[in-house]
């Protein structure tokens, strides 16, 4: 069953790098403007979504094990 934790790490590790990398580039190029309230709200929703999926999958694996 440790295989499922490996999958979880792989998905949110590599996927997280991609996710955060794009967010960082967007801030740097001002495609995402932190001085705009709507952009800040969008950033927060994106981060909440990412951590929600990460947490749900983690708790799910822990519960089954």
């Amino acid at each position: 069953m440790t295989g499922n934790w490996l999958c979880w790490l792989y998905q949110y590790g590599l996927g997280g790098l991609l996710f955060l990398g794009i967010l960082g580039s967007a801030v740097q190029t001002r495609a995402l403007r932190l001085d705009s309230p709507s952009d800040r709200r969008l950033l927060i929703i994106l981060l909440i979504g990412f951590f929600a999926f990460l947490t749900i999958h983690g708790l799910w694996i822990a519960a089954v094990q």
Partner: protein
Amino acid sequence: MENAGPPVTLNFSLHPLDWAVIATYLVGIVLLGMWFGKFTKTTKDFFLGGQRFSWWVAAVACVATLVGSYSFMQYSQNGYNFGFSSMTAYTNDWFVLPLFLLVWLPIIYYSRLTSIPEYFERRFDRRTRIAVLVIIIIYLQGYIAFNLYSIGLALQSMLGGHLIIWAAAIAVLTALVIYAGGATSVMMADLLQAFLLLSAGLLVFFLGIRELGGFAAFWNALPTRHQLPFAQFNQPKEFHFVGDFWSDAITGTIAFYFINQSVLQRILSVKSVREARKTMLCQVLVLMPIAAVAVGGAGWIARAMVAGGASLTQDPNGKDIFIRVVQKLCAPGVFGFVMAALLAALMSTLEALINAISAVAINDIWRPFIRPGRSDTYYLRTARYVAVAGYVLGLLLIPVFQPFGSIYEALTHFNAIVVPPMVVVIVFGAVWKRFTPAAAFWTLILGAGALLVSLFVPDLITPLAHGEPVLATDPPWKHHSFMRSLFGLSVSTVLGIGITLFTRPKPVGELAGLVMSTIAEGKRNFKGGEPSEAGVGRSLVLSMAADPVEPATVRLPIRFMRELEAEPGDMLYVADDRWWLGGLRSVHVKAGPPHDQDDVLLISPDDIERGGLKTDRRVCVEKLM
């Protein structure tokens, strides 16, 4: 285990009540499409639904487009064989969302793109556009034929008769919806179809839970491996986590949201970038997980029933499991409802593909090359003929697919060859200003070439295969079919970077609005002036009156202009105040000089007609930018 193959003949005799439900659905969907056709007046309406819809309409329609042919069959089969890990395809899109929402969406929306190949010409050059055009047409037409074939197969399996006759009958019905109204009709039909297919899938799941004696009994009956959210890391070769991650979460998701013309049309049919972002967030966070339960739930139920001693499937791989479970759980009438939902899933995807191919044919071939400079009415008429031609060609291509035992697998191989280079080119093109036209073109050509070679020399993939097992008895082209995507992405990335370093980039001045760092310029060009952030998204409701104001312009009372923080020249959206119409009756306009009369919006008769607005209704005015 194969994902598809020769049909399993079920030899049902449908109850008259089931027939009645199916017939009601089919007649209803055609009438609905024809009624909504009256909102289609221009090619923009036909391809993009007039860019008028609210976010929730597009989100639900996207689900109907996504859940298509074989979704119920395939994911129920996966659910039966692999458990809850069948959901991952519907729950692993989150990583790509920043790229889509912050980069790709504003690029395509503010550039007023109507097709994907158009982006490739503006960002790179004409030869890259033509290369992409060829790939996309083959991709779409192949999928149309595949959908027609799968519809024919499904109906033939259940009811007998001839596959081509069933496929032709469905083609005629969906052609009526498309011919009548294009994207507007398809969007509204999709709305109904999405509710139908989601509710039917969930109904089957909940009926199964009840049959098993509650959720705890269902859960406890499942083997532990079926209870886990992820598949095994790298085996069996038919379905494993790492293959699914690279071929679906990364390549498949980017392909689906960035390259698939029918999804582009859904996203661009909404009234603003802000609404399009809401569409995507709702779809990925809420609707997709629900859809995952709807399409895979029957398989999980079946596994629990079989664990309890029931005998359900006649196929060793569980290909028929969805139909078997539905047959066992549903009473007459309910069975017809679920079958109508299955048809809805098939038809909505087909309609979206047909509308997409006519968009590509008109905007990328007809308008620029064959008959440039004609009236919009001419292109609209031609788009409808192309839609019909797409069906005819799809039907003619069915015999090409028939000899294959596993068409789905053939299409998966086709995707693995074509999609990775396009994914790399589109991502580099959108985020990297230095990425050159030569690199884009040769990455597409050489990347696809390398993938073709890998079909004959699969050992090329082995170093990246993460230990994926290979069956010695399989022909070489079947080896590493899951991991071919990672190979394609890696080769294309190296090619893209390498060629870029030795070739000349496009002048920065020609990239306004086409790459991540120039989105602000694109926004400015879209508005025709400096965008105003103040008051964006704020809306007010007031009465409306026809007035000889300049077309595409409205005049608001001074007080309302102040409340919206709007200035003359700002972009506004005027819609019927009934929210549940989802923007069906609406129009984009600019703010004109304010007036000091009563609380009334002054609008030209042309714009009232264009937006399908009713003068006896109040309107909601929203500031867009």
